[in-house]
Every structure is written in C-alpha cells, then in structure tokens.
C-alpha cells in the first residue's frame, strides 16, 4: 500500500495551511488579551467604571491561548521537557523513546478528546456568566486541540518509521 500521501506534497501544503491558520489565531488571541486588559485599565482609571465581562473573557482568552499555542508548540517541538538525557542516547534508542513519548501524548489526548467532547455536549444549554456565548463553545477548544495534537503525534510516528 502506498503511504506516500503522509509526507507527499499535498500533505505538506495542508499542514502548512493549517499551521498558518492557527498562528493567526494565536496572534489574534495575544493581541486581544493585550487590548482587552488595556481597555479595562482605561475604563477603571479614566471612566471610573468597569467592563462587566472583563475577568471572564480575559480568562477564556488565556485558556484558548494555552491550548491553541500548545498545538503549535507541539508541531515546532517547543514544549518544555528534559532533553539532556535523551540527546545522549544512540539514534535508534532516541527513535524508540520519541515514539513512546508520542504514544503517551496520544493516549492522554484521546481521553481529552472523548471526555472533552462529552463535557461540551453536556454544557451546550448553559451560557457563561457575563458573555452571551454558550459555555460549551468555549470548552470545545479542548477536544478540538486535543484531536489536532493527537493527529500531529500519529503522523510523526508514521513519518519517523517510514522515512528511511
């Protein structure tokens, strides 16, 4: 069976496109955080009032930033870990440990996807306290980013063992 599609041109393009999209999302989230905090400061000190949805909204921005940024960090290999020991292993052993690492991430993200989706569907009826958004929509970030991280790890494992 031909598995070239996994690292063919089309796949590369799709990957680059998806990553670009998420980069814009993260850029937007950080920008929104900076602006919303500054606006709140302006309201409090200049207008002597406060934005009612500020705390909740800023908190959710941080949550979204955390998990979307985590997908990008996983793609770039930027997560904080302890590389010093593994770097000293011979390459075949490194390949094995990397596979185990990806498998472990797949397991935990599978749990996050399944139960995160369950949580999302259970919460669709409720809205947030101060925002007119169903809380389920905000929780959706977990199963979606979980699925993406799972996908990245699965593709990496196949690529790693198929490349040579």
């Amino acid at each position, binding site marked *: 069976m031909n598995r070239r599609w996994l690292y063919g041109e089309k796949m590369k393009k799709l990957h680059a496109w998806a990553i670009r999209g998420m980069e814009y999302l*993260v850029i937007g989230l950080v920008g929104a955080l900076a602006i919303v905090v*500054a606006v709140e400061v302006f309201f409090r000190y200049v207008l002597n009032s406060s934005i009612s949805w500020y*705390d909740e909204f800023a908190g959710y921005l941080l949550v979204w930033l955390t998990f*979307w940024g985590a997908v990008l960090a996983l793609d770039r290999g*930027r997560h*904080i870990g302890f590389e010093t020991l593994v770097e000293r292993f011979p390459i075949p052993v490194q390949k094995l440990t990397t596979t185990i690492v990806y498998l472990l*991430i797949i397991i935990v993200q599978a749990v996050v996807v399944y139960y995160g989706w369950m*949580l999302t569907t259970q919460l669709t009826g409720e809205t947030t306290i101060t925002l007119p958004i169903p809380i389920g929509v905000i929780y959706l970030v977990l199963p979606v980013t979980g699925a993406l991280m799972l996908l990245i790890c699965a593709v990496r494992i196949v690529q790693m063992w198929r490349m040579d």
Partner: protein
Amino acid sequence: MGYIIGLLVIAMVLINVPIGFALAITAVIIMAIKGIGMLSVPLRLFHGADNFPLIAIPLFVLAGQLMNSAGLSVRLVNFCSALVGFIRGGLAMVNIVASMFFAEISGSAVADAAALGSILIPAMKKKGYPADFSAAVTSASATQAIIIPPSIPMIIYAVMAETSIVALFMAGLVPGVMAGISMMILSYYFAVKKKYPIEEKFQLRKLWVSFKEAAWAFSLPIIIIGGIFGGIFTATEAASMAVMAAFFIGVFVYRELRFRDLPQVLLNSGIQTAVVMMIVAGSALLSWLLTNELIPQRIAAAITAATANRYIILMLMNIFFLFAGMFLHSAAAIIMIVPIVMPLVHKVGIDPIHFGLIVTFNLGIGQQTPPVASVLLTTCSVANISISEVMRVNIYFILLALGVLIILTYLPEISLFLPNLLLE
C-alpha cells in the same frame, strides 16, 4: 500512591515527555487505576489554564519582545555604558547594570540573556575580553536578575503558593540589587587582575545625551515598578501598560518598530506562554489528585517528624531546589514542587513571601549551572564557546550567588522589609 506518582512523573520526564503532558498522563493513569471518572480530566485542565493572574505572563513576555524590536535595549545599553563604562572592566559592569534594568521589563532570564548577550558579547569580545568571561558574566547577571521585578517565575510562584504577587515583587528588589552589586565587585576583581579594558572616560555630557536618548525607555520600569509598588496597578495591568508604552515608543518615538514585525512578536509571546501554561494545566489536574490523597500534608508530617527546625528545613529546601533547578526549567520546577512543599512551609512558620524569593533565586542559579543551564547555553552560543570552557569562570559567579543565597536565606529581613514597609 505518592511513590507511584513520583516515579511515573520522573520516568516520563527522563525520556523527554513534555512536562505538562507527563503530569496529565500520570493523573490519567492514577485515575484509571482508582476508577475516578475521567470527565474531570478536561474540566481540571480547563480550569487550570483559566487562571486570571497568569494573564500577566504573555503580557510581560510581549512587553520584553516589543522593547527589543523597538530599539529600547540598545539605548539602555548606551546609557549604562556612559554610566559605568569608566570603571575597569566597564563592559562587564554595563552588562550587569543593563541586565538589572532589563529584568524589570522582560521578566524572563533567557530573553534577557539572548537580547543583551547579542549586543554585549560581540562588543566585549571585540574589545579583548575573553569569550568565557563574557558569556559567564552575561549569564550570571541575566539569571540573578530573575528576582528583580517583574519576574515571570515569581508570578507563577505567587499563584501556586496562593500569595501576593505584589509583595513578592517588592521582596525581590533589594536582594536583586544586592546580587547585582556583588557581581560587579567580582567582575571588577577579574578586570583588575586580568587587566580588562576601560570602556570610555566618564563624561557628564555623554551621560546626559545617552540619558535623553534612553529617557523614554525608563518610562517602562517607572510604569512597572512605580505602578505596582504604588498600588496603582495590579501586575497584569502594569504588564499591559508596559506593552502599550513599548508599542507607543517603538512606533512613534524611536520609530524602529515596524508593523510587519508585530505578528512574529505576538506569536512568539503566545507560544512562550502556552508552553508554560500547559505545565500549569497539567499540574492543576495532578495536584487535584494529590490533594485528594493529602500527599503534601503527609510529606509535611513526615519531615516535621524528623525536624521542625526552620533553619534546617530552609537549608534542605535550598539544596532540593538548587538540584531541581539544575535539571528543570524554572517555571516547571515551581509548578511541580511548590504546591507539594507549601503545607510544610506553612507548618514550620516560614514566610511564604520570603520562601518565594529564595526559591526563585535558587532556580535562577540552576539556570546557569550545567547539565541543563538554559541561560548559560544561550550566552555560550552567542559567544561561540563551549559550556565546559565557560565553567572555569562561571564557577566563581555560581559560588558568589550561593553566598548571596545563604545570606538571603538566613536574613529574611533583607527581603521582607520593603513589602512590610509598603504594604502596612
């Protein structure tokens, strides 16, 4: 159960499972064994990341990066050069003083070392300073400036230990300056002994010119330190004001910040935040299990059964955190260890603010101590020299820092008098 959790986490970290994931996976395994409902997994991860005070992290990182792109760092270095460049070994002094200013804005030691190192290390080498000394002094000043506010590890500590960010920031100022001065003395000793050059003659006119150039850059420490200490801003608000100021100065005053640089700057801050926040989220899930099992309380009971002497426990903690800091990223170490040891800290009556200062300083030392040494690694790659070569000089800076650490550990008043004075 405690042992199993500990072993699982350590085993996973050793094979380089990213730390946030290692904590979450451990929690999932334990929950599966004990038959705890897994719906808590996404719920705890979500609420772990939904942590309002931590919004200050992306904002401080952003302020630091903007400040670099906006040309503030270069002007800060020029001012420091006019201020202390006349002393023998002047560029080393510039390096230390600039680090102290820079720490007040960027809040991250690796960012400090990268930003200042890329300006100062080539300049030092060109003037005839040896590469090992240049790399060592940059790394030492960047890591010890970690306790000068604002400090991202301190924000994380305050959240984990449920204490005040503002009080911790206040506690860091005097020890930070003390560490800076002690490093300047050590550098001066090296400079005299090895005849390092004098940078420039002291000229009041030059100082004034460079001050005027850098004056806008000084608005940032004033906003941050003044705003927070004066009780005007929370840490998050001060961070946001620093972002706005750096943006304004970069675009309208120095005109070096280009709009097309912005996406990259925002993205970098976002990813740097996310990698720390993933550990926060994973730790929230695991600590919920640990607390259910009363494991931190049991550790506290076991240790206090052996000794309840505050000074011995502080010494043990120092050794423990120093060791942890040699291997772990400072934020990761704080997030993993602080929630576990806090019951012990409270039980023997150590001030949590004082403890936070010691922990942060300790982890700073770890960042310049091999085998991991993230900050030292950064300066070594800028100086193009190996870690083992740098260690010949760096070891003196580490020993000096350990001396300062001991003083700070056993004289809590040095750290605590400022928060006690200002927060009365």
